[in-house]
């Protein structure tokens, strides 16, 4: 379970998060929506401890990561997988080395065994047999799927997705959405996804939280979100429709 309480973060004199409260039970599929620049990525990165908030607490299964030292933080991070907006594959390594890195670094498993597991994960994301290629040779959609395979490598119980479908063609988006929904349905992995794309949000989310002016302005099920009469939500949905 993830409990975020009173989270504040500012950069210089620019407030970004101004008291975010959010509770995410195990197995939840949460989508975080909101305008560009409203702090969605900052919130996501705070949850995995990449950004230290100025104030407030983030408890992961009861442990507050905002006051943790590096060692404990790394231990808690072993529960997480994260898919970055640009996939963030290591471009000096092959796909295989990328996906296998978490096991190579954290276990004593021999490389052939790691390779077998890598191939398994690559198959899961629909990219079997590309282990030997370099990230630079892949398309944007393929990179994201490799990034997902890497995030899944340690069988995390929580996955964070930062705009998993932005910049992808509709067909690839559908594939990625299905994959994300499946992770949650089949493996009971808690998923938190940041997205602009409402189609994607409705497909992968069971619950939607909307950030507005540094706070959670809406928090409810997908159904409630679509039917909400809240002018702010309506405006966001209309703006989305126009945007597409």
């Amino acid at each position, binding site marked *: 379970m993830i409990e975020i309480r009173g989270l504040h973060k500012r950069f210089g004199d620019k407030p970004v998060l101004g008291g975010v409260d959010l509770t995410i039970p195990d197995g939840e599929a949460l989508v975080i929506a909101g305008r560009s620049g409203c702090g969605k990525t900052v919130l996501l990165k705070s949850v995995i401890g*990449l950004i230290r908030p100025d104030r407030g607490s983030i408890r992961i299964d009861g442990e507050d990561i905002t006051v943790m030292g590096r060692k404990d933080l790394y231990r808690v991070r072993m529960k997480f*997988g*994260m898919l*970055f907006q640009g996939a*963030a*594959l290591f*471009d000096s390594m092959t796909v295989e080395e990328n996906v296998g890195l*978490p096991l190579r*670094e954290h276990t004593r498993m021999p490389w052939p065994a790691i390779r077998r597991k890598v191939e398994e994960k690559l198959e899961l994301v629909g990219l079997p047999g590309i282990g030997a290629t370099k990230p630079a040779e892949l398309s944007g959609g393929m990179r994201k799927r490799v990034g997902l395979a890497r995030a899944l490598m340690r069988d995390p119980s929580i996955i964070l997705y930062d705009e998993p479908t932005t910049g992808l063609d509709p067909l690839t988006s559908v594939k990625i959405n299905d994959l994300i929904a499946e992770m949650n349905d089949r493996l009971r992995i808690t998923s938190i996804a940041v997205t602009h794309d409402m189609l994607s949000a409705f497909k992968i989310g069971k619950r939607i939280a909307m950030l507005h002016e540094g706070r959670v302005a809406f928090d409810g099920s997908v159904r409630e979100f679509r039917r909400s009469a809240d002018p702010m939500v309506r405006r966001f949905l209309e703006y989305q429709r126009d945007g597409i």
Partner: protein
Amino acid sequence: MRFPVSRTVGGKVIGFFRELGVFSMLLGQVIRHPAGVFRNRRLTTEQMVRIGVESLPLITVMSVFTGAVSAWQASYQFQGILPGATTTDFLGAAVSAALLIELCPVLTGIVISGRTGASIAAELGSMRVTEQIDALETLAIDPVRFLAVPRFTAGWFMMPILVVYSYWIAHFGAFIVAFLMLDVSGPKFFNSVQEHFHLQNVIGGLVKAAVFGGGTALIGCGVGFAADGGAEGVGKATIRAFVLSAAFILIADFVLATILF
């Protein structure tokens, strides 16, 4: 805006010390990972090969001509100071001491700061701006251990080796000029080198080399980690790494000279 000059100077001074603090902190983090060197031996070897291969051609050219010009210049400066016959007697010794203590370590250091320091900053800078360093963090892999430790180790370890290489090439360059252009015979040149050879000079030169190499790698890593602002930020980081490490080498050279010699 009443004291613009003092303000900018003050700002620069504060900036300099803040910078110094950042690099000292990074140094502290790097040397806290002694076991990391062993665990990272594959990564470290990669970096060693890279530093060697990357810089060898330029170091070769630099060394030949540094040796050559030192011989030529020394013979010119001796004119009128030493009687004609003695010039050739002392040429080897004079040139050799300058190469061992000063020229080879410093110039190899500058080459390394332009090749290796800048390329480390470019590589880590682009990893920073494309979130690859964040990705390492999320995989619970310490970027300092994974990226900085191997580069730092390779830097201080490889530099002395490159400088020894540079010593040989530079002496060869000096000898060619002495032999072909200044009429100094081979035995005369090398006897003179040998007679006035002090092991202390070589050790001092190699200590300098290790400091320059480690410092350059560390500066490259620090600047790369701190990069932001996309591709433009990476370009800036590259230049900054070169400027800072070149300045570091020149200042450290003076400081070490006063301590070692």
